[in-house]
């Protein structure tokens, strides 16, 4: 079983649209939406939820006002400025438990925190594991790890060939959690100076964790000079540019229809994404 994760560094380069297409193109796979902060893949795949679970993660300090002697020690010790006037701000609390351990009056307990939900769903393209991190919650990395673990279990149980994951933007905690141990990363970029800058950083993360990568330039014709610059950069880095997808309003129209663009249009975008999936297949086999 092989796992492909689609990343980009910069947000909004087209990760989810491309993963939606892979859902329609790939045989024998499970889909995983690892962007638990702002999950969008379900909007293209129209899932019916089969299983829904709470994501309990991390802890939050709770001060028992009756036991509290107002010594202020917790406030002094907390490095996350989460306690003010002997009240805990659950958003700032990192759940480290230092205050609870140190409180001389034993007035602080740590409470398990319901920080999101995760789902196993059916779609017409196959099973989908997705999640919703609660508003302003932490531990998105742990929820991503959980989504991947569930997807892996489904793939093993059903003897599926692929896990296709839609990754989060950025390079931090949830990205590292989506990436570690994957077979291949597809990095979707766009021909803007910001896109190039962010591609370099996310490629650095792939290198750091030893994950092979392919690059796809989306909307390549918006600035062909920059597209050439990305091509030269990738050549120097020994990274293959596996696809150049043209700009086409059909991509947005397909999102509005709630469809992967390969099911909406037979234009060049669709042809290019089809050959991209074949190329990824080749890279995974080789």
């Amino acid at each position, binding site marked *: 079983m092989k796992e492909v994760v689609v990343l*980009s*560094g*910069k*947000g*909004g*380069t087209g990760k*989810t649209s491309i993963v939606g297409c892979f859902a329609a193109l790939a045989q024998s796979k499970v889909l995983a939406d690892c962007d638990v*902060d*702002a999950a*969008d893949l379900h*909007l293209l795949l129209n899932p019916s939820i089969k299983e829904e679970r709470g994501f309990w993660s991390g*802890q939050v300090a709770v001060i028992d006002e009756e036991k509290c002697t107002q010594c202020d020690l917790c406030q002094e*010790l907390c*490095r*996350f400025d989460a306690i003010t006037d002997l009240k805990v701000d659950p*958003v700032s609390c*990192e*759940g*480290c*438990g*230092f205050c609870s*351990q*140190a409180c001389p009056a034993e007035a602080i307990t740590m409470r398990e925190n319901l920080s999101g939900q995760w789902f196993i769903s059916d779609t017409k393209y196959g099973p989908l594991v997705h999640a919703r*991190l609660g*508003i*302003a*919650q*932490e531990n*998105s*990395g742990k929820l991503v790890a959980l989504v991947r673990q569930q997807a892996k279990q489904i793939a093993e149980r059903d003897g599926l060939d692929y896990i296709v994951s839609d990754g*989060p*933007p*950025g*390079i*931090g*905690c*949830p990205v*590292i959690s989506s990436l570690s141990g994957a077979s291949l990363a597809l990095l979707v970029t*766009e*021909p*803007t*100076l*910001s*896109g190039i*800058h*962010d591609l370099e*950083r996310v490629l*650095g*993360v792939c290198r*750091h*964790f030893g994950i092979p990568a392919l690059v796809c330039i989306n909307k390549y014709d*918006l*600035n062909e000079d*920059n597209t050439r610059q990305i091509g030269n950069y990738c050549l120097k880095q020994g990274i293959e540019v596996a696809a150049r997808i043209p700009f086409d*309003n059909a991509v*947005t*129209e397909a*999102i*509005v229809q*709630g469809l992967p663009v390969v099911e909406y249009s037979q234009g060049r975008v669709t042809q290019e994404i089809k050959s991209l999936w074949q190329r990824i297949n080749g890279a995974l086999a080789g």
Partner: protein
Amino acid sequence: MWGKDGESMIISVASGKGGTGKTLVATSLALSLRDKDKVQLLDCDVEEPNAHVLLKPIITGSESVSIPVPKVDEDKCTYCGKCAEVCAYNAIAVMKQKVLVFPELCHGCGACSYLCPEKVISEEGREIGVVESGHSDGMEFVHGKLTIGEAMATPIIRKVKGYANHEGTVIIDVSPGTSCPVVEAVKDSDFCLLVTEPTPFGLNDLVLAVETVRQLNIPCGIVLNRTGVGDRKVEEYCQKEDIPILLTIPLDTEIAGFYSRGIPLVEGLPQWKGSFLGLSDKIREIVNERSGSLKR
């Protein structure tokens, strides 16, 4: 802190969904205001900072950001295991005659060193990123950069925000999403500008972003970017939720072209400056109104 005329105001620019135009809006707003007000731009998207690509600042200062991680003096350690027991992140393991520290798991809370009964744990800094400061055409500029391979963005965001001068207008460019880095960047703002696009993705993530800023009790307004394709659902949602759409920017290959070359919108197309000044006036009005009603 409330944004009366002449008083300082912090505006954060966030979005939920990535790539909707946060940096385009933050930089053009800052460049438009610069002529009439003191402006400082803080790029708090420390995973993928991009404001510098457009503003090309001259960097004059650099400060390392590190988190304190434990260092155990094993000559004096009794291997009692207290440190491992109190660590919520499994960053310390105590064996019979050996203490293992996993610095990349450590959040730097300080519990182990404080609670060690033998007082043999000290702390040393581990660098996770840098904050760079400087200026761009008379505007103050600060951004943070998370080191590649590091996971924790929030300590760097906290450090960048520490540079806020609380004079004139402070504009904060935020990372996409709705979790801890976004909350850290947005909290304490006087106003949060949410940039979105008129698609189901834009709407889905806007709803999450609105819930986040409402939880933080910060007033918000919308910039609707790339109008022309897509649908009208974002507008319908904003109307229903009584959230003002303060500026719309059309899908336009000329605008996209300037952005792709790292040219801020108001420099490529100066006629947009008036729209951004109007945007800032509307924000000030909302903030003032709110501060008035809070005082009453």
